[in-house]
């Protein structure tokens, strides 16, 4: 017990430190740009001068693309920001209304072979917890299967189940249960 507590504490402290480190150096607080870039400009390629002889170097910035991609996944105007597929009671087929969402994510996974996805399947809380883990697994497997049919690669996707353990709605009503019968698509970095 003690060992675990200490480890957890250490992890929490490390996390707090990292968070602190990030927040203490926001971009607008860096050293004045003018000083840093005074000499660098002279050596930059493609400034319009000719004959000085250094071959050009084109810049590829993956961090920007990553940002673009992540913002695309989070942009409320993009269908990719929609991550949930809802299921009928005791069912695991994907209803027509959710097919465009799954298709969009399949395209995204196709276009970004390095992207990884975790699909968490969920069940409402009626019945046995372990059988509900099984039902949630069926739902996440169902989403995974459709993504693969649409061109995503199997190693990109892990489908798991949270059973009835992570409800988004806690009441005993069909309105609530239907919100909990769900598959959620999460990308690497989001879980």
């Amino acid at each position: 017990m003690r060992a675990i507590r200490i480890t957890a504490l250490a992890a929490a402290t490390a996390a707090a430190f990292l968070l602190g480190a990030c927040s203490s150096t926001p971009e607008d607080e860096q050293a004045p740009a003018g000083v840093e870039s005074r000499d660098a400009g002279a050596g930059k390629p493609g400034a319009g001068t000719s004959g000085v002889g250094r071959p050009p170097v084109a810049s590829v910035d993956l961090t920007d693309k990553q940002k673009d991609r992540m913002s695309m996944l989070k942009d409320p105007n993009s269908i990719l920001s929609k991550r949930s597929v809802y299921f009928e009671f005791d069912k695991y087929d994907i209803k027509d209304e959710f097919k465009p969402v799954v298709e969009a994510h399949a395209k995204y996974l196709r276009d970004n072979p390095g992207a990884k996805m975790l699909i968490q399947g969920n069940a409402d809380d009626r019945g046995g917890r372990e059988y509900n883990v099984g039902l949630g697994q069926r739902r996440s497997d169902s989403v995974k299967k459709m993504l693969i049919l649409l061109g995503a690669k199997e190693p990109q996707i892990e489908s798991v189940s949270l059973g009835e353990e992570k409800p988004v709605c806690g009441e005993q009503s069909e309105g609530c249960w239907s919100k909990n019968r769900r598959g959620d698509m999460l990308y690497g970095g989001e879980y």
Partner: protein
Amino acid sequence: MQRLLAGRFAVLVLTLFLSVPLARAQLSIEITGAGAQRIPIAIVPFAGEAALPPGITSIVRADLERSGLFRGLELPPLNPHPTEASSLDYAEWRARLADAVVLGSIATRPDGRFEVRFRLHDAVKQTPLGGVAYTMAKGQVRATAHRIADYVYEKLTGEKGVFSTRIAYVVKRGKRFELQIADSDGAEPETALASFEPIISPVWSPDGRRLAYVSFESKKPVVYVHSLQDGKRHVAANFRGSNSAPAWSPDGTRLAVTLSREGGSQIFVMNPDGSGLRRLTSSAAIDTEPRFSPDGQWLYFTSDRGGSPQVYRMRASGGEPQRVTFEGSYNVSPRLSPDGKSLAYITRNGGKFQVALLDLTNRQVQILTDSDRDESPSFAPNGRMILLATVIGGRGVLSAVSSDGRVKQRLTATAGDVREPAWGPYIQ
């Protein structure tokens, strides 16, 4: 059930003397049904027990009454106060309507520990049945009381007592989940694991030293094996996909688990360290909740291969499953009784989820509970009681019912939801 209990429905609330910090979930026990014939027993306060609150005999009496098989008699002050050394006037105890009498004393030893001596008498046959002396430290009053209750219980009923055993369960309070271990009466809970993610399906290793369970701490179900004594835990199954529903083989050398690594939910067996993995079921269905029979020969499990979840069994080495439950359209969570002769499971009965008991010899099914959201039945090691989780007033509570359906108890925590009980083995 109502018919069975009619006329002898008794409600007794025993507030347990829990001198534990408030942060712990205290379980208090309410007995809501008792056996038809309860043995009237006089448990005379032990000489010297006042120095060790809450009083050893009050715990012995609460244990015996909770079984539903005993009724503790109210006693007037006795002068002179009898002890285990006293010669007993049996006629006097028969006049007080006692069938059995427990007498004892507690003395301080030179080393600061205590010596507890007691003797049990059969007042009907007018004969002593035996006695024991225990040496205990100050903090062992409860443990000693449970042992005395086990002794009395076994002498008078002929079956082994389970008061010294422990139970495991999960408490959810706000966003916090705690896997707790408590005495069989819910007293003195200790937290084995605290987490902000769910913990389900704890199961005791046969030696009572380890628990296997499912934790969602890595955003998916992973099976862990956790040593209670030192808190060391290791991942037993963390394959791609979901890992759940662990079950120990009776010899403690193998774990059956449900894995989705090859698609769907299928049953595998492996060593407790995750090695030696072998797939046992091969279906397009959900196959889950494996449980070994006490002789280790069979695996009972839940499967919806026939269209609805039902209990099946197969050889522990694999092979063609046979269907076990036939009544109803939803039968899950199979648990074999310790003698292997009956099967407890959860059945959906007119929209209610209740504990059913199937006699594997004559195929009779009896519904044991009248609650409506029962889960996770768990036999006491002597097979007499079944612990279960249910929901009362929107809150998760533990409850227990005797395997004949007559005795009922409810264990309520002061705060939070209690679920996923598992009754531990006999203390070795």
